[in-house]
């Protein structure tokens, strides 16, 4: 079975004392996993480590067969651009830009010609219910903004999508819609999904739910 994410003997410690240790974790390309745990337990840190945005002290992380822990600098950025899509609790869209432009940013860094951006971004936005891709993101509702963020995470056809509490800022209706769309499109695009949440209400939407404290040993819970 092809793996989207493989973590082995990972150890990461912050200077202030918090540390995470994960012996072994893997996620296959067709899997959708909910990583559940209370706020501040280290779920976000794990996702940042997995995306190569934090440096592990030891261990190995592979993204679709490529080690991101061995890669440095531009090569690591290239692996991330090619294989990872990220959705955050806050949408983190670029203000002042249109929905299309926001979705096109990963294409730009992925080396896709600007002339092709609209043809790739617009159908995906439409699929997520954003009918006008030329609308500025600051004019969209919070739910719509999160859907643009989902489109941005998936536009580069990543091997895995890391969604860090993507529903925390949404009302229950929008939250359900966002999770549902995220799952659907990940499946359509053959992307694995690792979604973190402290909301027990989401557990029913996932066939595989992992509790963070069962996955990782932490020396101290973040405040």
């Amino acid at each position, binding site marked *: 079975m092809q793996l989207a994410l493989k973590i082995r003997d990972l150890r990461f410690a912050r200077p202030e004392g918090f540390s995470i240790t994960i012996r072994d974790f893997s996620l296959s390309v067709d899997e959708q996993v909910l990583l559940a745990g209370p706020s501040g337990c280290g779920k976000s840190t794990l996702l*940042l480590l997995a*995306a190569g945005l934090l440096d592990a002290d030891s261990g190995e992380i592979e993204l679709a067969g490529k080690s991101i822990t061995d890669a440095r600098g531009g090569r690591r950025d290239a692996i991330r651009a090619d294989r990872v899509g990220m959705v955050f609790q806050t949408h983190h869209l670029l203000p002042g830009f249109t929905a299309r432009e926001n979705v096109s940013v990963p294409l730009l*860094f992925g080396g896709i010609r600007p002339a092709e951006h609209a043809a790739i971004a617009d159908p995906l936005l439409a699929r997520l219910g954003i009918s006008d891709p030329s609308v500025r993101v600051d004019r969209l509702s919070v739910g719509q903004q999160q859907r643009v963020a989902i489109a941005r995470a998936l536009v580069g056809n990543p091997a895995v999508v890391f969604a860090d509490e993507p529903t925390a*800022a949404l009302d229950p209706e929008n939250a359900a819609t966002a999770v549902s769309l995220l799952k659907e499109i990940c499946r359509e695009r053959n992307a694995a999904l690792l979604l973190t949440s402290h909301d027990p209400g989401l557990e029913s939407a996932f066939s595989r739910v992992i509790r963070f404290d069962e996955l990782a040993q932490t020396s101290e819970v973040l405040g």
Partner: protein
Amino acid sequence: MTDLRLILKSLMARAASTAVTCLLIAIAVALLLSMLSLREAGRRSFTRGVGNAHLVVSGDSSPLVAVLNGLFYANPPRAALPESKVIEITTSFPWAWAIPTQLGDSFRGFPVIATTPQFLEDFEPAPGEPWVFSQGRNIERPFEVVLASGVAAATGLGIGDRLHLTHGIGVGGSPPPSAPVTEPSLVASVPGPEVEDLVEEDPADHGHGHDHGHVHADDGEHVHDEVIFEVVGVLAPSGTHHDRLVVTELQGAWFIHAIDRRELAGRAAPGSVEQLEEADRLITGILLRTPVRAGRNSAAALQGAFDRLRRDPSITVASPSTQVDRLFGIVASLDAVFIALGAGILLSGVISVMLVLWNSMELRRRQIAVLRVLGCPQRRILGLVLTESAIIGMIGAIAGGLLAVGGASLAAGLLAIRTGVVVSPTVDPKAAVLIAAGTVALAALAGVAPAIKAYRTPVADNLRPLD
């Protein structure tokens, strides 16, 4: 989406600080370009404005002053030359032409040159470009005037209009009480007009205290309202400071000053130009040209003539082109000060680019972190900030260039109005490209520190949820 779009949006998001920074750079670039442009244009204009005169002779204290007074009409010459000296000089050498001039009067702030008709025939206001009459004819008799184009345009006077001259060279501006007269012309009585025909009663004028022992002092002004002059010709523009001249016949100018002089001495005023005495026949300068071969503007004999005249201690002889070079040599250090000032402003503009970008990095940490998450390599972040900085420099340089063209034209216009020095400012393309490229490079350099700050932005720390 393109890198450029990312940069431009970022600039537009901080429109006010971007505009102020660009403006600072634009002002510096404009100042530098204007200085260079006006310096060159000024030099060209002065060099051109000496016309085809090879030498200027006057009673001034120095050759530079002789040229500034005699050819650029800066001030009335302090001392006059008697007619005998003029005859001696003009006959001492086979000049191509020798034109006596008397300066010291003005009309509405425009300098009046009293001379012979030869001034409008042989003297060329710019080398190779003789005077052209747009209307009327040359001066032929006393009390006739020809207006240069600038005077005609400014005063609205034309052929047949009459005017009084003012003693002293004014600074321009409001018309003195010697505005054109409406009385019937008395010019018909010349040559040899009778005193009672020419002199107008003006008891207020009798008490003036000007020292007419000197030909022309540059202190106060007074109106020669005893005699009316008539416009007989208007000149076409020459594109030089000579376009501010009022040209009149020498004997008429001698006549009005003779009236003043004799009145002061308690003597009867002269009845006609034929009654002028040698003491009245004073001139303030001579324009000289040595014979030259066709197509050339200098003669081998010039140096010899110059050296011979220079041995006469009672006169000052000057080569206009040499004196213009000297003048620009003197003001060169002032140019350097202005250029240093422009460079200083440019430097402060560049520093402000750095500060603005540095501060904006604080506000853009989250955006930079998001770009990194989306696959933007660190070195590309570095490039984006450096390009942004260079674009500010480029916008500033372009705006500065436009400002320089407008500013230099404005300065040239003001210079023409105030001093009569006509300059055509043109920005040297080589200097413009050099300054623009330097500005862009400096601005890019100013972006290095902010770019490094952006390069080092920690990603994970800046992706915390917004409140």
